């Protein structure tokens, strides 16, 4: 895909704000709802958010590092996706019909880890940081700036694709969290 840098950042910012609003609303609900499991092995809302927090623990500093390493540009060139980055980003996207089931790496799987309600506060702080980083990213070359992926440090994908992957991943699990909170507790 090719897209103007500013347009991409705007879209991702909008999506981030949308996810923040969903979670801010969940924050108002009773804790019992946040612990509902749609099926016994499914994640509850808190676990969904903790999963996102763990990715944020890796990616937020990594994204910041990638931005700092690059020169500031008044008018960055258009963003073109790399094939691998595009693959990851599309993998995460929530499609109209169904959401693909995927296994998480063990250290990012919070199931049974007794996640407490502060996971929401932590997530909301991470979202604030993400908005700041998106703002900063608007002034760097999103192709030349690269971020090592969490599962393979020798693989570095374009910052633009990292941001897409990261934000779509958040959307995916935020929607999952909302669904879990509104499900009938089977767990």
């Amino acid at each position: 895909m090719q897209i103007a840098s500013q347009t991409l950042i705007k879209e991702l910012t909008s999506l981030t704000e949308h996810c923040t609003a969903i979670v801010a609303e969940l924050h108002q609900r009773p804790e019992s709802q946040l612990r509902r499991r749609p099926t016994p092995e499914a994640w509850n809302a808190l676990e969904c958010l903790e999963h996102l927090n763990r990715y944020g623990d890796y990616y937020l500093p990594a994204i910041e590092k990638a931005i700092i390493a690059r020169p500031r540009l008044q008018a960055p060139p258009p963003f073109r996706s790399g094939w691998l980055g595009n693959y990851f980003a599309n993998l995460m996207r929530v499609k109209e019909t169904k959401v693909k089931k995927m296994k998480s790496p063990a250290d990012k799987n919070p199931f049974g880890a007794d996640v407490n309600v502060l996971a929401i506060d932590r997530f909301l702080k991470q979202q604030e940081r993400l908005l700041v980083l998106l703002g900063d990213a608007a002034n760097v070359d999103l192709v030349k700036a690269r971020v090592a992926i969490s599962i393979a440090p020798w693989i570095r994908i374009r910052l633009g694709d990292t941001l897409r992957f990261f934000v779509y991943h958040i959307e995916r699990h935020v929607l999952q969290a909302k669904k879990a909170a509104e499900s009938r507790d089977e767990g």
Partner: protein
Amino acid sequence: MESFKDKLESLFNQYGVLKTFSRGDYLTREGETETSLYYIESGAVRAFYLSEHEESVIRLGYKGSIITSLSSFLTGRPSDLYIEAIRKTSTRILSKSALRELVNQDIDTLRQYTTLLEQTLIQQMDREIDLITPSPAERLERVLNRSPHLFQEIPLKYIASYLRMTPETLSRIRNS
């Protein structure tokens, strides 16, 4: 002659409101305005700062401690800290207004308040040095000198956070 500590305790006994917290209850949450000064009669609490990436314990309190979200209490600004009961905790609470009244009406109480503030400042300076002490073992020693019974009152993971080390490192230091 009553020690300063005893005087303070009787002040809380006389004017403080009793409140009990269950384990996991928050005395204060980030964003709330702190208007309470807590004297811990029994139990234990931790005061921590939540960042995007971790919960950092900055203060521990148990029997005999006085705790509050100090900045918020003094300035009226929203609290940056959470204070959580880490087990069932019984406290006596002096509200900000009650404290102000007491301090204004009685010079002895004013002196006690000043002494409490001075002690708190000294603790802050000690803590600042804790944080820049490079050796984990030395950080532990400094804190144990101030609070010898810490491990009997507080779970290891919170002490480790307070000391800015992993629970594994803390265990290793204790066992060596």
